[in-house]
């Protein structure tokens, strides 16, 4: 079920047939201004790439890693304008006026002058910033001397965490792309192949599908029977052997929305071993997933999700058992020591990562995305393909 991929007029954002991306951009922009009004915020200073995407829909160059915080987009309530840091209009949607671009500079004095000159900044009384540095409050006060500085990340979180139908459609389409790549990687699995070669196949397949560098290099980790199973995300040159279990956890972006899917396969003598009956670890992982998914209802806390996981015999993956998915990963997060007080809401999309370690001399991992409250009676619905490729055994279809 690959979405039909086309290139938008002007050669910008890759589109799918389903989502109304222009309408989505307009709604997201309006939600930002509505939230500013509700919190009496005059100016919102955004620094992170996903914030720029949410507020303006601008397509950005994919760069790995976290980067220093600075003003990348500035929304001004009084004028209804969002000023965008950028040199060119490449990837900038039509609704951002060309005059609303402000030039990037290596010179802090020039950046300050450019920001200070934006209409509505100097008289702002309440400025929200999405993060900061030690010197950033002084920067804000140098351009808006009277302003109180408040938490803009919390403000944006209130509008970003609940997804509308077009956002869910983007996540579903991205998940379909990820599932295609997972199938391509699974087809490579054979004795003698290395983890890194599987990673190469994953990135190559996504490129063939026409989507850019993925959100993260997938887990491609293997272990032999008798070895303790550890969930690793740094791929190695280890060669697969018959009977090894291999975790494949992939993700893809479409129109900046993330999709993802993960599963575990067993190495056979010539490809993947597909036994008629599931290994006990697979059965246990399916139970953990089902229990976690059943717990994902509006109002459920992170502590309750954690309890559901452990009660079903699940373990905590190092980077969490549940996290939000939208424009990349986002809150809520339920991870080691984190997220007990997080509360799920109807409309959130979350990834649930079911992991069991050392069951039947091996571990098992399954990941699916869930749309909270979208199923019957407030239950969660799986976003994207239900079963990962290769979906040739009924037991691989998790119950929900």
């Amino acid at each position, binding site marked *: 079920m690959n979405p039909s*991929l086309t290139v938008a007029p002007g050669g910008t954002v*890759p589109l799918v047939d389903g989502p109304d991306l222009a309408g989505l951009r307009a709604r997201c922009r309006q939600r930002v201004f509505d939230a500013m009004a509700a919190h009496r915020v005059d100016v919102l200073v955004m620094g*992170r*790439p*996903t914030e720029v995407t949410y507020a303006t829909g601008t397509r*950005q*160059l*994919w*760069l*790995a*890693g*976290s*980067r*220093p*915080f600075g003003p990348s987009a500035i929304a001004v309530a009084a004028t209804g304008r969002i000023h965008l840091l*950028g*040199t*060119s*209009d*490449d*990837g900038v949607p039509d609704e951002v006026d060309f005059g609303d671009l402000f030039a990037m500079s*290596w*010179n802090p004095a020039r950046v300050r002058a450019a920001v200070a000159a934006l209409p509505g900044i100097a008289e702002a009384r309440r400025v929200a910033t999405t*993060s*900061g*540095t030690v010197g*950033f409050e002084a920067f804000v006060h140098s351009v808006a001397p009277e302003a109180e500085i408040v*938490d803009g990340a*919390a403000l944006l979180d209130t509008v970003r965490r609940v997804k509308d139908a077009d956002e869910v459609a983007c996540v579903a389409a991205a998940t379909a792309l990820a599932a295609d790549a997972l199938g391509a990687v699974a087809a490579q699995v054979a004795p003698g192949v290395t983890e*890194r070669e599987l*990673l*190469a196949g994953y*990135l*190559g397949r996504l*490129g*063939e599908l*026409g989507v*850019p*560098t993925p*959100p*993260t*290099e997938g887990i491609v980790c293997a272990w032999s029977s008798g070895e303790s199973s*550890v969930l*690793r*995300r*740094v*791929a190695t040159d280890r060669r697969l052997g018959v009977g090894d279990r291999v975790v494949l956890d992939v993700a893809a972006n479409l129109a900046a929305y*993330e999709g993802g899917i993960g599963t575990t396969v067993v190495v056979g003598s010539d490809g993947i071993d597909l036994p008629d009956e599931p290994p006990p670890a697979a059965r246990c992982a399916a139970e953990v997933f089902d229990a976690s998914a059943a717990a994902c209802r509006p109002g459920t806390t992170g502590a309750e999700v954690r309890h559901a996981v452990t009660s079903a015999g699940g373990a905590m993956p*190092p*980077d969490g058992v549940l996290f939000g998915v939208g*424009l*990349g*990963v986002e*809150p809520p*997060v339920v991870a*080691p*020591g*984190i*997220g*007990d007080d997080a509360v799920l809401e109807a409309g959130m999309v979350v990834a649930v990562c079911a992991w069991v370690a050392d069951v039947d001399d091996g571990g098992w991992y399954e990941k699916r995305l869930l749309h909270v409250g979208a199923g019957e009676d407030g239950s969660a619905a799986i976003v994207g393909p239900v079963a990962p490729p290769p979906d040739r055994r009924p037991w691989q279809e998790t119950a929900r």
Partner: protein
Amino acid sequence: MSPFASRGDDSTEPVPTVDGVAIPEVADRARMRRERHARLQAQLAAHGLDAVLLSGTANVAYAVGADAPASDPARSMLARQVALVVRGESAPYLRTPYPEGAPAALDPDRVAPAAYPDLDDGAAELVAWVAERVPAGARVGIDEVTHPLRRAFATTAITLESTSRVMSTARVTKTADELACIRAAEALTEAAMVDAHAALRPGVRQSDLTAIFLKRVFELGVENVGVDPIWQPIPTHKADGPRTVHGDLGFPSASTQATLAGGDVVWNDTGLHVGGYASDFGRTWIVSDDPRPTGEQIAQYVTWRTIVAECKTLAAPGVDTLQLCRLATKLNGGTKPWLAHFYLAHGIGTSSAEMPLVGTDLGEAFDERQVLGPGMVLVFEPVVWTEGVGGYRAEEIVAVTDDGTVSLSGDFPWAPFPEEGP
């Protein structure tokens, strides 16, 4: 490794050194980590800081040198790798979602799960963890202060300070091992680029080239992707490209599924990481089954090669970077040969563009004060442009050694331009 010989390894040439240490063929990563830690300790002492708490990917890579999968900013900033370097201690602390990537020599007691400074409970936990490891009332350098972190630190006696001086001073000059990592990353980038260059034919999509390139880099042993590869068609007139705020050429533009047509002039730009260190590769190519540059295009290429060759000859310890800007401008007939929003050259290390920055809008006085020293790296990326013809752009990585420079780029062919250059 690269099918092309590295420059400077001719046995008849003197071995290039940095602070008396020869640049090795393969980096000694354990030595590299020890030396970086010593530099950070010296900077903590020099600035009177008790510790630095680092969550920027390039800073963490420098302070710890842990392996981790490359991730987009959203993932990198939510479940964070964090480094804590405490004055007087022999090793850093690491928070990471990828404990398997911690250096083998790092005591497991110094490795803890990912930090979540964007979340209130995550920030409270991180600040409590820091407070257990620094003196009461400590002065702690920090590179990003999220709102939850600001609130959590406000409940302690810890004072927060900027890290920018500490980190830029430590990072700007590389050790011989750091230079070896950059050279290895560049060699792998060039080796993988052979297949992508061969696929550059009319009708190929930008994303097809990305597919070929990324598949190959991981087969060859690159550890991380740093930037989605750029394959941007460049017009003959600046106004025919993206509209820009300054009227100069719009570059770079992110790749899409756009199809490249016969005759397109394409600027390639990409970067990968080995040992945490970035490569930076760029070339100008012509999309054709039989690419033949015009005389004007060849003349631009020759000027580009001349600028880089002469800047490499001039660059040495004690030379200020304004001299490089002036030489490059003179060789380009009096016009600055770089884009208005960029530079003649930039440094590279655990970040793909870092100090020294040469020819930016920080101004001539800044460049005049910026003096080269052994271990600094310059990625020369001049642009030779003629309105109506278009332009030539490529990149070459050069390290400043004890007595001159050495190229860290390999011998990737200049095709379809004449190999011999000027």
